[in-house]
Structure formats: C-alpha cells, structure tokens
C-alpha cells in the first residue's frame, strides 16, 4: 500500500507546496539570495560530489527551495552529501550561495525533523566532553610528551557547555534521531 502511495506522489500536488518557504529561507544567514537562482546549473556542473552521486544535485535543491518543497527537502538525506568545497559559491553567476543554502537546510532538518547523521552527534558529544571534536585520551597526551611536543591547550568546558545551551544547540540535539549512512 505504502509503495503505491509513494508512487502516486510522483506528481507534486499543490498542497505539498509551502509558498512561503522561500521567503523564510531568504531571511536565513547564507541563503539570502536563493530567490535569485535562475537554474543555470553551473553549481551542479561544478560539484565534485555530483560527479559521483546521482542523488546530490545542488541546482535541484535551489529549485526545490524556490518551489517550497520543504518536506521533500528536509527528508532528503542527500543534503548531507555536500562537502563544503564552495566551488558552487564561487562560480554562481547570481551570487547564490548554494553551500550556504544546504547548510541552512541541514540546520532546519536538525531543528524541525530532529534527524542528523550519527557522526555529528559523536563529534558534538566529544566536543562537550573534551573541547575537541575527537576524543583526546591519556595516550595522546603521553605520546605528545614522548615526541617532545608541548602540552595541549586546556579546554574551557564550562564555556562550551554554556555556548551549546545559549545557542539552543543542546535542545536541538536532545532526542535527535540519527542515521549512519547516506546513499549515493
């Protein structure tokens, strides 16, 4: 049954569309110019990821934002395939920051859909625990000393904790659902 329903949704019906979405997006830091995109496709042609993945198409992401396909976008795991190389940002003839748009969409996915790749929760918890996004263990410190390197700077864990709280990030990550892999 669900298989059939999914197929019917091949046609985008008017009710799926959130015409206000693009305005909301254009107020977010990094996605301001999304409405200027005229779909030339330079970003996709430039994209090193798109060369090897048929799911990740930056132009299509911009189009979906313009059209207001918020739900489809936020449940699209391909968003997490952007490698942040900024080639698209540099080459866009309309100065649309596609990588910025993708970042905003990722933020929204975390905030509204409460979904995030597992790796980010791991990095975040490391950061909260030790100030570094990777777990620096005793072994690392010993090794450094052995190599004649100075001791690592001490993290201010209190501040980090606070920053997580005031920026709302702690709440964002609370009860978030995780997944491990994104298909390419």
């Amino acid at each position, binding site marked *: 049954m669900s298989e059939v329903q999914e197929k019917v949704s091949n046609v985008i019906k008017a009710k799926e569309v959130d015409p206000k979405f693009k305005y909301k997006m254009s107020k977010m830091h990094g996605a301001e110019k999304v409405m200027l995109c005229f779909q030339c496709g330079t970003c996709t042609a430039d994209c090193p990821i798109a060369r090897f993945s048929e799911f990740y198409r930056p132009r299509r992401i911009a189009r979906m934002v313009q059209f207001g396909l918020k739900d489809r976008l936020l449940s699209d795991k391909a968003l997490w395939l952007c490698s942040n190389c900024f080639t698209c940002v540099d080459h866009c003839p309309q100065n649309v920051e596609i990588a910025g748009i993708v970042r905003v969409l990722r933020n929204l996915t975390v905030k509204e859909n409460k979904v995030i790749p597992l790796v980010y929760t791991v990095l975040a918890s490391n950061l909260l625990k030790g100030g570094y996004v990777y777990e620096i263990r005793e072994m690392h410190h010993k090794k450094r000393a052995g190599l004649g390197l100075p001791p690592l*700077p001490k993290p201010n864990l209190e501040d980090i904790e606070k920053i997580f709280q005031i920026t709302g990030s702690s709440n964002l990550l609370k009860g978030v659902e995780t997944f491990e892999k994104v298909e390419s």
Partner: protein
Amino acid sequence: MSETKYLLFLGCVIPYRLSSYEISTRKVLAKLGVDVVEMPEFNCCGYPMDSVNHDLMLTLAARNLCVAEKQGLEILALCNGCFCSLNETNKMLKEDKELREKINGYLKEINMEFKGTTEVKHLVHVLAEDVRFEKIKNAVKRPLTNLYVAQHSGCHLVRPTKFVEHGDDPENPKMLKDLIKLTGAECVDYQDEARCCGNPIIGVNEEVPFEMAREKLDHMRVAKAEAMITVCPFCHLMFDLNQPRIEKTFNEKFEMPVLHYPQLLGLAMGFSPEELALNTLRVKPVKLLEKLRTN
C-alpha cells in the same frame, strides 16, 4: 631574533591523529624565526558544528577569536577547516553589525566580547606573506632538485573567495606551488588541481569521497608526481591514511607518499626524516627518501 609571533591554533585532528604535521611545523617555524604561542584555552573551531546549528559554529569560532584578541595576537591555523571557520567568522562579524550583535549577545553569557581586532592566517599565508620567500630560500640547505611533487591546497584555503583575501587564484592556487618551488622540488601541473578531496562527507558516505580521491590520485600519477603535498590534516587523512583502502576498493596501486608541506620544507632545510616524523606516514616515502639520498 624572533620577528613574528602568532597564536598557534592546532584544532582537533592534529593532536588526535597527525602529530607529524605539528612536529614538522614547529621545527620549521622555529628555524625560520617564527615564534608560536600556545592557546591559553581552547575549544573546537566550530566547523564540524555548522551543519548542526549555524549560531553554534559562529559562537565557538568567535570564542577562539576573543581569546586571540585578549592575547593581542593573530591566529595561525594549520588546518584548512579551522582557518575557514575562524577566518569566515572573523570577517563576517567584522562586516555584519547585526550578526556581531547577535553573537556578542551569546558571548556575553561567558563574559566575552568580539571586538574585531585580530586576523586569522593559515600556515601557507604566514610563510608566503610574512616570512617571505627570500628568507625561506636562504634557509634551504639541501635543495630537493630532481624531485617532482603535486600540490593539493584544499578547498578552504582558497574558497569561498569572498572571505579569503590573500590574492591566491582559487581556480589555480599558486601560493603553495611557489612555496614548494623554494625547496628546489618541481611542482607538476595536473588535471583539476583545485578540486575537493571529498573528506568532509566521509562520515556519511564513503563511496563518493573514495571516488573523488581516487580520481585526484590518478590525475597526479598521470602527471608523474612522486609525492603529494598537503597543508590540511583532513586532506592528508583522505590521501594518506585512506590510500590503502582506496587502492583496495578500486583494485589499483598508487603508492603515492603524501607529505605535509613543512615536512618537505624541513627536508630541504636539512632536518632528518625522523626529526620531521616522516616515519609516521601511512604511505612510506621509501623511494622518495632513497632518491634524495642519492641526489
């Protein structure tokens, strides 16, 4: 006789996995008379958290900037990712008053304030623009003639151009190339030099980054490079640590040693391979060292 002094920002990956980069950098900088000061306190640059929450990234980065401002020093970043987030945040907060107020609102909670009095530099910028070529050239004691290497500057050293003001060409980065030439080695041109290594998405997908890195390795091999030179721990991991797995996945052999730039420079300045921690590389530069010995 130190003329230049920076606050060294190590980031997370280097202490976790790539001491070789840190060791070689410290050795080389000391000899070039660059003074590095350790961060009095540290937190992650914020880059990995950008996807989670943009404000979080900005605030984490700004906190580091505040620490530097307090010290009255410019930041020297070794990692492209750290450079990107710190530099970008620094530029944005300086230019965008509204954003600055918002972030300062957060910082107030931890008794800090971003003032916009410092700068962020990458190791490459410090060497090329502050130390200057002349000085480096003079420090080269054992020119690495007859050695052919390929450079990989990585994305965040040159992009987005909007925030990187060091005059390097994002389509064809030259700074690192010029620095390599100072060591006496030849820097070969290869196809798509400015393309990404793929590392940032390795946490969610391995197939695509492996394909990307393989393609780059292939292009370098075609250009007859004997080693690859990086200036970013992420790129280095992608090509060095993952090289055996890439070889296995695609059933090809590259055996391409990947050196941090300070390792290359260090060799030219007369340090021994051991002093530069060349032995800790995954792809052993056996042939390369052999060649240098017989040179």
